[in-house]
């Protein structure tokens, strides 16, 4: 088990290395630089700034500097916001994004699984059709349109919830729902088909043949097996929530990390781009690892690899 985790951590570091490398060169391939847009700067000053921030160094020296800063998680100061460390920016934005992301994940998983189970149990009946209409809507409507529609209905028309910003729990509802809608729909469909598969298996018949009640059969024997594909979807789910948050935070004016990331890219704020990218990557890679470990707990057949390591 320990060897297994160490091995996985090794892969994470390897992946990070590639991500950093690719981001670094893409960043430098893009036209412009951190100080290019500020027209007020004279060429002399711009050159001086570049010098001060090490941008005149040969590219491989800059690259090595970045690698070192990335692996020590010390990204230095922002190029744009004087006096602000990248770590400050991350620390400031993270709480918003964390609340938004976790809330969206919770909504997507809880409602998605629920809809999927209802659809499967009411197969080809009203409940199934309703759930699947919701799912198709969720998948086909992009989150930014969903966001606008939600804002229009619940904030402008019904005046139930605040339209933007991120201050109270009420503020979090619309962005979280908008962010959750696509993965929620996907999970609902995944859950439905997996539940239908499981309910037609022999071991469900075996469970019934023992005289267990409908509910025990459905939940103890059905749900636990049917949920496995949803668990493996949590990795992609985290990714989808992360990328979705870039757009949603912008629309709802949430000062989160996703917003910070988008701003840093338009500003060519190299250190912030690098910092947020590394942060997002670590988050994603670690959650994928966690999901795999959880999967091993739920599905005993997966433990084989871990056991092999132990012995």
């Amino acid at each position, binding site marked *: 088990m320990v060897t297994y985790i160490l091995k996985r951590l090794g892969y994470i570091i390897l992946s990070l290395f590639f991500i950093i490398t690719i981001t670094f060169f893409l960043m430098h391939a893009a036209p412009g630089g951190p100080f290019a847009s500020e027209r007020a700067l004279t060429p002399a000053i711009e050159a001086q700034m570049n010098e001060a921030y090490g941008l005149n160094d040969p590219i491989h020296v800059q690259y090595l500097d970045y690698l070192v800063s990335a692996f020590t998680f010390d990204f230095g100061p922002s190029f744009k916001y004087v006096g602000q460390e990248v770590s400050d920016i991350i620390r400031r934005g993270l709480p918003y994004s964390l609340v938004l992301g976790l809330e969206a994940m919770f909504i997507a998983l809880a409602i998605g699984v629920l809809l999927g189970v209802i659809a499967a149990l009411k197969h080809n009946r009203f409940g199934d059709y309703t759930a699947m209409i919701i799912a198709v809507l969720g998948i086909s409507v992009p989150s930014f349109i969903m966001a606008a529609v939600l804002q229009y209905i619940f904030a402008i028309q019904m005046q139930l919830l605040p339209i933007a910003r991120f201050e109270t729990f009420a503020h979090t509802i619309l962005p979280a729902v908008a962010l959750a809608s696509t993965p929620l729909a996907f999970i609902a469909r995944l859950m439905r088909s997996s539940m239908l598969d499981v309910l037609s*298996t*022999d*071991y469900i*018949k*075996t*469970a*019934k*043949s*023992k*005289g*267990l*009640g*409908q509910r*025990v059969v459905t939940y*103890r*024997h059905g749900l*636990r*097996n049917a949920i*496995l594909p949803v668990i493996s979807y949590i990795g992609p789910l985290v990714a989808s929530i992360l990328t979705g948050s870039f757009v949603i935070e912008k629309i709802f004016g949430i000062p989160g990390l996703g917003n910070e990331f988008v701003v840093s890219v338009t500003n060519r704020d190299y250190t912030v781009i690098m910092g947020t990218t590394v942060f997002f990557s670590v988050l994603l890679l670690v959650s994928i690892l966690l999901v795999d470990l959880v999967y091993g707990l*739920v*599905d*005993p*057949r997966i433990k084989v690899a871990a056991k092999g390591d132990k012995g």
Partner: protein
Amino acid sequence: MNKILEVKDLSVSFDTYGAEVKAVRGVSFDLEEKETLAIVGESGSGKSVTAQSIMRLIQMPPGKFVNGSILFNGEDLTEKPEKQMENIRGKEIGMIFQDPMTSLNPTMTIGKQIAEGLIKHRNMSKKEAHLKGIELLKLVGIPTPEVRINQYPHEYSGGMRQRAMIAIALACNPKILIADEPTTALDVTIQAQILDLMRGLQEETGTAIILITHDLGIVANMASRVAVMYGGKIVETGTVDEIFYHPKHPYTWGLLGSMPKLDIEEEELQVIPGSPPDLADPPKGCPFVTRCPYAMSACTKQMPAYTNISDTQKTACWLLDDRAPEVQIPESAIVGGSEINA
């Protein structure tokens, strides 16, 4: 002997897109205490549907009881509310399925899967059920049951899984065990072990067994009586001796003829030419008519009634009518002594 199960004129259909599949069409048979009744017939003849109807395991819809009754202890199971059926399943009637690779829940330990029935029907505590589970695993011949009980199905071999399945089915000492092709998915040596185990346990517990199989060799070894199914109907029933030595139905002849013989050198196995009837649109007369070498015009028009050959043997065939020509049982269907005990 006491009848513990009486299936009377049972008909089960499935509503599918555009058609009603009449999978079981008027099946009647009895099961006596402690006996083994074999149901044989080729694929699609309605054996599993019959078996699962008794346990009420057929999904309804699309399935439905069209007609008939299933009397267990004098009570009609087709009319029992679901809640009361739960007290019959597992407790009074146990079931084993064909494929032990898929019939056990992959995410639950064998011990828990055995314990569930005991906790439900015997009011045992978890601990008691666990101990009883170990005892049952030992009974079905699983080595180191104290260890094995905490393992998951994927840690068991196919034969061991079927043993575990037997332990689950017999956990509450049911009066009837329905075994739907319990050895078809296993290799030959394991087959024999599983059948031995079932026979031994039957002697110990006195459970009556309904054994579904295509394999006449297994029938000869295990059963006292046989029902031969074809196209959703029982075309012939009798004791094992009657079915093997005095079969009257051409389909039974075909089955016996397609059994490998040890004492006669044959170039190839006999098969019954043709394919079974479409149960969405079953023939009006005898379902075997299209494949029967002795078919007459009467056969296409009306299903023959059962003719009582003896107290125990009944056959539904027009050849047994007084007006029908005399037909000799074909050479290939004559059973010698050797293959029955093979």
